[in-house]
């Protein structure tokens, strides 16, 4: 029997040592370079937790990285080493879907044992950004950080200190960022940031409409939808909620029609949907305006809903003192600007055929209940704040708000689910009140003192100092994930601006190269935590420590505690608790506020996941729709503010209108710059990466290579063939990347999967295909957020 098993023999022959050997042999793709500046590496297998237990044991765990989903990972451990990863297969006893890991989750064994792991603390020895480092002791690292914190705080004040947004690898009850922020808060404070790079536009706009970002039903409601439109939304690859895909599949089984509107034929278009309708990037709101026009002029709208629950669809419900021509109806009919927002009008902007626009409008308006679900991709452009507002308008016009199978659209976090965000760890108050949008941190490095409310500065009229000290823990937004990499490099490289940069990570990322002190972090398999999915789905997963930290890697909580000790705030930082004890504190907090029967941490480790007691289905704004007087929304009027007086009073009507309006994007299809750079460039979330995480993972690179998509029409014009290496460029920089010539992208648009680790050749050109070399650092009008799908570029054969 044994000799028949090819797998069995292979396992016998390739033992632990040789596994590590081959994992070393295949290391990173050549373009990434190897272990820059490392001195001799420790032998990987000498520091692994030794265990004589040769029987395979399975431990539940879960990764709290920067993914919206939380899946159940089963770590198979033998002889002290993780030998295999598997995942939850069967649905929960309570009928909740299995929380299956995606392609990224299947690679975690390699990620943990990757030979390029940062192994010990290092200090910079070359120029900043050059990537030359020298090994130091943990004592020296902690001493240096503490003394630099003291020096800079004394010289420039606490507002000169900043903790960069980004959750690459650290998330949960005592996440890396909350550890850093607590440390900074306890030692004088730090410049706050608002928002994120994922959803700040919709996060800013949606609450002005609905009073909350939780405008989604539970995903289980989707099983009752008759039509589902996924606009700029790709749950087939990006996991915003782990249970979402199950219910989309259920909806389809139940006969729902699922349509994907996207410039790309996405994974969702292929495996989850019935139809793909392509569109030009940045023009979704023109489509939605035209759909609204069709629905209104054909009398398919729910006038009673608009009258009873909404502000500003027509003159009847406009706030007092606002001219009738400012209503949505007046806008659609062109009463002020003379432009009717017809399908013919939108056809020219979107590239979508007028009949297709009519079809989509009628389909959505006549198949109720329907769910118009917006992805965050649609709001990540110059005027992305209009995207969720357009969605909300259509949901209200069709009365799909507050009903089973409907969807109020806009941001769409699940409403009414018990929340797992209950950590009491980060309770320290930051004495500094000033805050910037996270996307403007590079500005705050070189012109912080010049920033005003117009730049999104809040909590202070002005800043007394620029950013001088930077903590970048577990994120890659210091450089790689921020727009305009060449600009950022220049800002970061200047040691007279940001004087001290501390980075913590598990790999030498492009951001890590800009560290003055670089610390080796732990992976989720090396620490305990409890994790919540982004959109409250009503469950938490356990992150169970199954390995002692490898090499000299240290848990970030321990690192911040050690710095706190140097600075005399250890007790305030830890509050007398170890990281493990904060898990117990979390359990206590959840028992008090959400679920008295919440399991202990040890019990949670045995179960892997805990679902809070809750209704099978929850409907956003159900109570409000039942009785809007008794259950008003938390908007100023208590109603759905399709016209927002608050926004009107901001008095920036051209760029921040009071109603949803299509605004032609700079570097969009209507920008004259398109003469020079004729292609719209967008990024997308690559199925084999989570943002920039996993870029250096060989199995995942084998699964999906970093390539740019280009339509055959555009390729032919440039004499480009499939697999050719091309040069993609605009005024901000140049990347080299292989091209995939495909009809899966609309003509006139090119797409580069975002998150590839920037790697420059001797001329400073990127050779890995890192999108942000080409993206714009100009923030959006309203949220001051990242507009990373708003780029024009040109391509030629390399």
């Amino acid at each position, binding site marked *: 029997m044994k000799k028949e098993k*090819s*797998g069995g*023999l292979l396992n016998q022959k390739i033992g632990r040592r040789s596994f590590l050997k081959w994992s070393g042999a295949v290391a990173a793709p050549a373009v990434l370079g190897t272990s820059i500046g490392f001195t001799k590496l420790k032998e990987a297998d000498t520091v692994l937790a030794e265990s004589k237990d040769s029987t395979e044991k399975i431990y539940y765990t879960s990764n709290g990285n920067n993914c919206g989903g939380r899946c159940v990972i089963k770590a198979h451990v033998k002889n002290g080493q993780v030998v295999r990863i598997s995942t939850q*297969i069967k649905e929960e006893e309570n009928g909740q879907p299995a929380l*299956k890991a995606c392609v990224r989750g299947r690679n975690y064994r390699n990620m943990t044992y990757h030979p390029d792991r940062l192994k010990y603390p290092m200090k910079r020895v070359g120029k900043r950004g050059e990537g030359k480092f020298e090994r130091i002791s943990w004592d020296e690292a902690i001493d240096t950080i503490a003394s630099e914190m003291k020096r800079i705080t004394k010289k420039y004040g606490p507002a000169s200190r900043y903790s960069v947004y980004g959750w690459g690898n650290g998330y949960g009850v005592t996440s890396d960022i909350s550890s850093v922020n607590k440390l900074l808060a306890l030692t004088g404070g730090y410049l706050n940031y608002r928002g994120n790079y994922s959803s700040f536009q919709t996060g800013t706009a949606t609450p002005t409409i609905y009073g909350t970002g939780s405008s989604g039903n539970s995903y289980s409601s989707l099983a009752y939808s008759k039509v589902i439109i996924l606009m700029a939304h790709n749950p087939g690859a990006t996991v915003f909620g782990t249970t979402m*895909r199950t219910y989309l599949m259920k909806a389809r089984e139940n006969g729902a029609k699922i349509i994907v509107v996207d410039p790309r034929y996405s994974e969702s278009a*292929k*495996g989850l949907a019935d139809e793909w309708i*392509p569109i030009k990037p940045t023009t979704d709101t023109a489509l939605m305006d035209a759909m609204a026009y069709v629905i209104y002029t054909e009398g398919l709208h729910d006038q009673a809903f608009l009258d009873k629950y909404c502000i500003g669809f027509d003159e009847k419900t406009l706030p007092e003192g606002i001219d009738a021509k400012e209503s949505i109806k007046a806008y659609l009919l062109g009463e002020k600007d003379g432009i009717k927002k017809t399908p013919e009008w939108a056809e020219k902007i979107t590239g979508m055929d007028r009949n297709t626009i009519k079809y989509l409008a009628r389909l959505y308006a006549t198949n109720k209940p329907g769910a118009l679900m917006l992805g965050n991709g649609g709001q990540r452009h110059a005027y992305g704040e209009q995207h969720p507002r357009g969605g909300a308008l259509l949901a209200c016009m069709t009365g799909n708000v507050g009903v089973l199978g409907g969807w109020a659209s806009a941001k769409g976090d699940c409403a009414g689910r018990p929340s797992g965000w209950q950590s009491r760890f980060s309770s320290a108050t930051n004495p500094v009140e000033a805050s910037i949008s996270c996307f403007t941190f590079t500005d705050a490095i070189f012109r912080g003192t010049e920033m005003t409310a117009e730049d999104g500065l809040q909590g202070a009229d002005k800043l007394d100092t620029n950013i001088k000290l930077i903590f970048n823990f577990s994120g890659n937004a210091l450089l790689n994930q921020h727009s305009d990499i060449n600009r950022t490099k220049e800002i970061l490289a200047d040691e007279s601006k940001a004087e001290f940069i501390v980075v913590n990570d598990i790999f030498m990322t492009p951001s890590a190269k800009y560290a003055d002190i670089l610390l080796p972090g732990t992976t989720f398999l090396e620490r305990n935590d409890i994790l919540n999915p982004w959109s409250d789905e009503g469950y938490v997963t356990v992150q169970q420590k199954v390995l002692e930290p490898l090499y000299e890697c240290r848990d970030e909580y321990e690192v911040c505690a050690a710095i706190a000790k140097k600075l005399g705030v250890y007790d305030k930082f830890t509050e007398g608790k170890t990281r493990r004890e904060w898990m117990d504190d979390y359990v206590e907090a959840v028992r008090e506020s959400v679920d008295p029967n919440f399991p202990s941490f040890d019990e949670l480790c045995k179960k892997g996941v805990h679902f809070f007691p809750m209704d099978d289905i929850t409907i956003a704004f159900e109570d409000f729709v039942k009785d809007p007087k008794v259950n008003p929304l938390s908007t100023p009027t208590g109603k759905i503010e399709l016209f927002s007086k608050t926004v009107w009073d901001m008095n920036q009507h051209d760029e921040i209108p009071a109603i949803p309006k299509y605004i032609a994007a700079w570097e969009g299809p209507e920008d004259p710059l398109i003469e020079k750079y004729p292609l719209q460039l967008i990024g997308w979330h690559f199925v084999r990466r989570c943002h920039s995480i996993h870029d250096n993972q060989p199995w995942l690179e084998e*699964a999906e290579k970093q390539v740019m998509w280009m339509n055959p029409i555009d390729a032919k014009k440039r004499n480009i063939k499939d697999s050719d290496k091309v040069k993609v460029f605009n005024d901000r920089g140049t990347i080299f990347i292989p091209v995939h010539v495909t009809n899966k992208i609309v003509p006139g648009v090119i797409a580069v999967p975002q998150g590839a680790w920037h790697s420059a050749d001797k001329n400073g050109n990127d050779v890995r295909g890192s999108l942000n070399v080409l993206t714009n650092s100009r923030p959006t009008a309203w949220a001051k957020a990242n507009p990373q799908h708003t780029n024009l570029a040109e391509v030629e054969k390399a």
Partner: protein
Amino acid sequence: MGQVGFYINQAKCTGCKACQIACKDKNDNKVGILFRRVYEFEEGISTKVNGVFKTSLQSASLSISCNHCDNPKCVQGCPTGAMHKRESDGVVLVDHEKCVGCKYCTWNCPYGAPQFNDDLGMMTKCDTCLDLREKGENPACVDACPFNALEFGEISELRAAYGTINEVSGLPSAKFTNPNIVITPNIKE
């Protein structure tokens, strides 16, 4: 147990390759060795007339390992008898006491299933995760699929449930080897 096989529901497959990575993890396969592979097919064209897009694009991913064929060409072409089809359930296996690494099987298999392992100097391939099956579990790829697009079982039962389609756009004709797969296609004829 009778002949076993895989059911592949292309209509639900997003092409994510979770199955491929789960297979590699289970079998410790380095880059270049793919017991399970995911291919993508694309048909149709796009046009842009007066700035308006039209597309007839159809696309599908196909996740495939060894099809444990009724008429396995890899077995017929093996000079040492290492590649064999076991009687009990029709799984095609490599006997590593006989394999000399000549790679004839890779030339004969129209599906690219046998995978040469440099470290062993021998051929390796999908064995339907025999060890997991002995424990009553599914092959790793099947349990990995987030979209439940793969199933494993007796081919007669899979055919009764899902029909008899065993070739789709991009695959060689089934007549050569009689593969034990059932497919629900995503590309409409």
